[in-house]
């Protein structure tokens, strides 16, 4: 982070509250906090109290070789003008995690999108209906085992194309 002082404050605040449950990665510009799946909600709640009031986005990355999904929550503090990434990993075959909608309302639609695109179940989410796709019944399309070239060939070219 750019401002050394506040960055230390944040880290000591999180360490005092969670100790060994969290670890830090210091990037060139953005600090990342790594947490276990079951602690995500608690740590997120503490981060909101610290001042991360803007939930920017959540990215899911499919690490298929490791059999895991990585969820990266992107947070921004309007007061401190700081950015932070909160990272956690969940197994691909049991893709469930607590919803963060009680903490940030803007997480609602982002989680709904990721449920549709990756098939992740956000426990406690009130409305996990499809968002962008129409009548989709196949594999969630942003997973790495969904081959979009094969899909296009089968759907629009009858399986083969010169």
């Amino acid at each position, binding site marked *: 982070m750019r401002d050394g002082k506040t960055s230390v404050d944040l880290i000591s605040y999180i360490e005092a509250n969670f100790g060994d449950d969290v670890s830090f990665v210091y990037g060139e510009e953005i600090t990342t906090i790594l947490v276990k799946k079951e602690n995500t909600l608690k740590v997120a709640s503490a981060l909101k109290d610290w001042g991360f009031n803007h939930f920017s986005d959540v990215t899911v990355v499919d690490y298929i070789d490791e059999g895991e999904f990585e969820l990266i929550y992107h947070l921004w503090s309007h007061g401190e003008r700081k*950015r932070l990434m909160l990272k956690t990993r969940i197994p691909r075959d049991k893709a469930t995690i607590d919803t963060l909608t009680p903490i940030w309302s803007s997480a609602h639609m982002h989680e709904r999108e990721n449920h549709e695109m990756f098939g992740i179940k956000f426990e406690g989410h009130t409305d996990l209906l499809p968002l*962008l796709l129409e009548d989709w019944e196949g594999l969630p399309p942003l997973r790495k085992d969904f081959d979009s070239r094969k899909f296009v060939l089968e759907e629009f070219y009858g399986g083969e194309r010169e």
Partner: protein
Amino acid sequence: MIDVPFFTIPFGPCHPSSGHFHASITLDGERVVELKPDPGYLHRGFEKLMEYRTYLQNSPLVDRICILDPFHAELGYVNAAEKILDIEVPEKGKFIRTIMAELGRILSHITWIGVTSMVLGLNSGCMIAWGDREPLIRINEKVTGGRIYPCYFIPGGVRRDLPENFPEMIDEVFDRLEKNLEQYDFLVFDNETIRVRMENVGILETEEAIDLGATGPNLRATGLKADLRKDEPYEVYDQLDFDIPTQKKGDAFSRGMCRRLEIEESMNIIRDALQKIPGGEFKNKDFKPFTKAKEKETYFCCESARGEQCYHMVGDGTDKPYRVKVRGPSFSHSLAEFPYLAKNAYIADIPAIYWSLDPCPADVDR
């Protein structure tokens, strides 16, 4: 008393004031009980497509994310890509990008004035705005070769240099635009048709706005001075002198006024940047079509015309990204703020609320 049941009507996707966006509105008489957004009519699967293409091929692709503000879609993409490709940009390239991005902001805000006037029943506002849009699009064409989709920024700089007579072209267009801004004030912003329909409609408080994920002019209209150009300066914004216009009330009219004032501020930024632009290379020739990225990830945000435009990019050591996540500003505007503001509003206020948020359906669906 006769018990009248609630009824549901669709807003879009072919409504003149909805764009390609659909929401189903449940009504109790003229009051909106609930508005359920249903996006997806412009879903093209960019995030998946980008995993199959090289970093250079993705550059023209991201233009299509939002038709109205393609420069910022590119700006966010190339900055994120440069971070994982480890490519430096020459100073002149950064200046050119800043200038063109600000031109894109003016273009987007002028389009907003046009569309909003038309939606609210003031067709002449639309005609004048479209008249002002054309010279700006011609500048786009002369600089980049494309009128609407520039395909101009690439990792490492820009595709080609600014034309020699660029400052004169800008002066000519801006002189005309400055005169017309007075006309906009007279015709649009002081017009009773617009005022009655926008003032005290769709009021958003700062706390609520932040919780709903609002950014850009929609957040600044509530009084918060939040702008990534100042908060996390990218390109050359830290070398330029500019101000961030804000409003206090947070209603539909303030959001519009914020955009109106930003047009002037963007013109100042471009004039300032043209004074300070250095000579030298405009692109880094180390970047090749098949340059491989490092195994790292980055999250980059820029302040687009509508708010926070972010890219999360994961590189895996090949010439194609492993994963790209696009965070468009309209995602929150359409799907979080709009249903919130529509609740308990009159059905007749829905177009004013929707357009005051300036969402871009293409950017929601990606």
